[in-house]
């Protein structure tokens, strides 16, 4: 019964998804802005344990050095990080125990066939989308599901852990974090690269919304009425 419902009608988003989505989106935007402000104090990245203005960088970003922005940047970064962590924890707990992770995000068996994944990838590379195959299939397509899962299961925890590794107070108590990432500077570099991947996800995510019935999709995430193309 639920199977048929999922396949024929877009079930819409419950309130906790919509709230954590928009709170998280705002916090992520603040994190990107403040993260750049912090990055400007030392716009070069290192691999290993040490790094400084004078030492050669692993990645030297073409950004101006500006040490005046790190104060407000750090304050905003921590404030928005707390908001995102709390919203993310609510989302994670609710989606794991509420069945949303299994029902909406985990790819189903037919979606995991290599042939299906390949055809989806081909369709997306031709900018054809995946709706051509079956117009009544209202599930997230497999690439979409994998992208969401990568953000939730891999990138978000990675951001939190590499962020914690940059805190001297945390690493003094849990030096295992250094072992995990190969040093504070490696953690900083991974933090930056993961942020770039997350930003790329957001760009593609917004692009996909704009390319696929943006009015209905945005209304669905705002009001919960998710019935697309009535």
């Amino acid at each position: 019964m639920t199977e048929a419902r999922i396949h024929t009608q877009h079930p819409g988003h419950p309130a906790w998804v919509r709230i954590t989505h928009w709170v998280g989106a705002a916090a992520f935007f603040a994190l990107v802005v403040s993260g750049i402000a912090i990055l400007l104090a030392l716009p070069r990245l290192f691999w290993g344990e040490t790094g400084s203005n004078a030492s050669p960088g692993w990645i030297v970003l073409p950004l101006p050095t500006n040490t005046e922005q790190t104060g407000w940047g750090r304050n905003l970064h921590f404030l928005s990080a707390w908001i995102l962590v709390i919203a993310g924890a609510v989302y994670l707990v609710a989606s794991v125990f509420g069945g949303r992770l299994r029902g909406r995000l985990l790819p189903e068996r037919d979606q995991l066939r290599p042939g299906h994944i390949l055809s989806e990838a081909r369709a997306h590379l031709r900018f054809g989308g995946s709706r051509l195959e079956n117009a009544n299939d209202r599930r997230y397509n497999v690439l979409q599901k994998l992208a969401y899962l990568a953000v939730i299961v891999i990138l978000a925890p990675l951001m939190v852990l590499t962020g914690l590794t940059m805190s001297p107070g945390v690493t003094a108590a849990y030096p295992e974090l250094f072992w995990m990432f190969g040093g504070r500077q490696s953690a900083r570099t991974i933090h930056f690269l993961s942020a770039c991947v997350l930003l790329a996800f957001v760009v593609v995510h917004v692009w996909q919304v704009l390319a696929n019935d943006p009015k209905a999709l945005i209304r669905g995430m705002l009001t919960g009425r998710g019935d697309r193309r009535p």
Partner: protein
Amino acid sequence: MTTSFSRRRLLVGGSAIGAAGLVGGCDLLEGGPSRGGVYGLSDTLTFATQRFFVAQPAVGATVRAGRDLGRLSHDQHHQSGQFGLPTLKSPGLRRLALARQRAGRAAVVCVACRLARHARAHPDYASLLRAGLVGDRRVDRRPAVPSSGVSRPEARSPLHRRPIGRWLVGQLRSFDALHPQTILAYGMNGRDLPVAHGAPVRLRVERQLGYKSLKYLTSIEAVAAVDGLGAGRGSMLSELGFSWYAGI
């Protein structure tokens, strides 16, 4: 005591973050440096969480701290010498620093032992004890940092911005000053501390950002309040918005 304090702070911070309408100042400790506004809330939450997870070990319990430091010292570049040597006989903190300055021998002393003795002598001080660490910038002979465009140490940069007179002042809470991982170093890697690393004596606060590890110490004082220092937050970088405990 510390744990219950931390739990309480965690609850305060957590509920404060939850209450969106509540944008008042949050005293991190009664009579301590406070910070208003919405950043005060996240600051309190960060601080409380750190205290909750990074519980203060008993003073003198250097086993875990020593293990941690051993882990941190993978190569010579990261070693800061031996850890937690027996206490010296000097009675006061100021005299200790001056004695080390004169002696300049290669060894490391544990500030925790000094401050613990001080706290025992002044039991009513214990909750408000802070160490004010004053560095003399005249002996700062660090080379200029080329990539940030700073040509002289006196030039405008956050680390050197508006020192109080010719002094740089740092503040530590008793929690951090008493921690076994907080050390005064006058030697490094089996030799005298080089000038570039803050000779004759420097502070090393493993658990906070580097700017809290003042070099070229001239005196240490236990004070009851940080009023008048660094926008009342006892930090030379609070002008930039950093909180008194460095905020990380």
